[in-house]
């Protein structure tokens, strides 16, 4: 089959996926990233290509590096919920 939308996460992308998982699920990690992005990226052991893709949060580049598309999506949602809270309506 052609590559699935949700493909097997390559082992080499584990640090990147672990970082996206932290951004998505861990408010403290999001706060550390907001306060000092460089130190947080080093803490997670991310290489230059991953750091560059994260700097612009470029989905296609991140996915190209092996990031799980869903993790990219929800990390971005959680970041925007904190950066622009007034635009969200809570039911």
């Amino acid at each position, binding site marked *: *089959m052609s590559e*699935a*939308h*949700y*493909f*097997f*996460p390559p082992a080499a992308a*584990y640090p990147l*996926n*672990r970082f996206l*998982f932290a951004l*998505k*699920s861990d408010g403290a990690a999001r706060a550390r990233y907001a306060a000092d992005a460089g130190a947080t990226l080093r803490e997670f052991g991310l290489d230059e290509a991953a750091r560059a893709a994260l700097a612009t949060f470029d*989905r*296609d580049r991140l*996915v190209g590096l092996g990031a*799980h*598309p*869903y*993790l*990219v*999506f*929800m990390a971005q*949602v959680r970041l*925007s*919920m904190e950066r622009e*809270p007034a*635009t*969200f*309506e*809570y*039911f």
Partner: protein
Amino acid sequence: MPVVAAFALPHTPQLLVRPPTEDRALVLRVHAALAEVKRRLTAARPDVIALIGGDHIEGFFLNAVPALAVYVGARAAGEFGRYRYAFDVHEPLARALVEQGIEAGFDLAYSQDVPLDYAFYVPLHFAMPAPAVPIVPLYVNVYLPPQPTPARCYGWGRALRSIVDARPERVALVASGGLSHFPGTDRYASPDFDFDRALLASLAEGRGADTARLTGEELDKAGNVELRTWITLLGALGAARAEVLAYEPSWHHGNAVVAWPV
């Protein structure tokens, strides 16, 4: 005790916390359908809701990827934005499902400590009966390939029904997920609503067993990886005919609210 209610519900987080990109009127129509589910669930007087959900890489990460799992902790808790959720877990039923499921040949994982995913608390936010009842979270891996096959999910649903039928509790079975959507991919704005409509028509005719013959590739192509939770429920329901309470396709998501007679 026979199953006392059966539903399949959406859980897209935009129903809970709406960004400006979402059509408010559509969101409110889905809420209305979920309010009808809450009314019916309350009338069914379940002792427990067994809730079949797909983990969004929230409870389980790449350190361990269970295909099928049962949460057997005392409480299940999760958070989204300013919402904090904590539900009592029905430990006797959870334990019976994992023990008897393994006896029946399903190598279930279990956990007593994973954060609850929004696949579980979004439907409960809107449809938990009043007064609230305990839950049993049942996990199906939908996002981390290789996922369990549709045939395996259907088979687990059949086994689940056999176990539940022999229990003393009044059990509501609820699947959470779908329908078509492609979060994080270049198909996000073009879900496969034709797949959804054909599926719902088929389920209304009681042809749930057909879903066991779908392939993982077909589900991925149709943006329906989460249908595995529905297929598990369908295994428990056999030839019951679905009643579609709502189908509301948004610009990125086929929101379906479906009931089955039990």
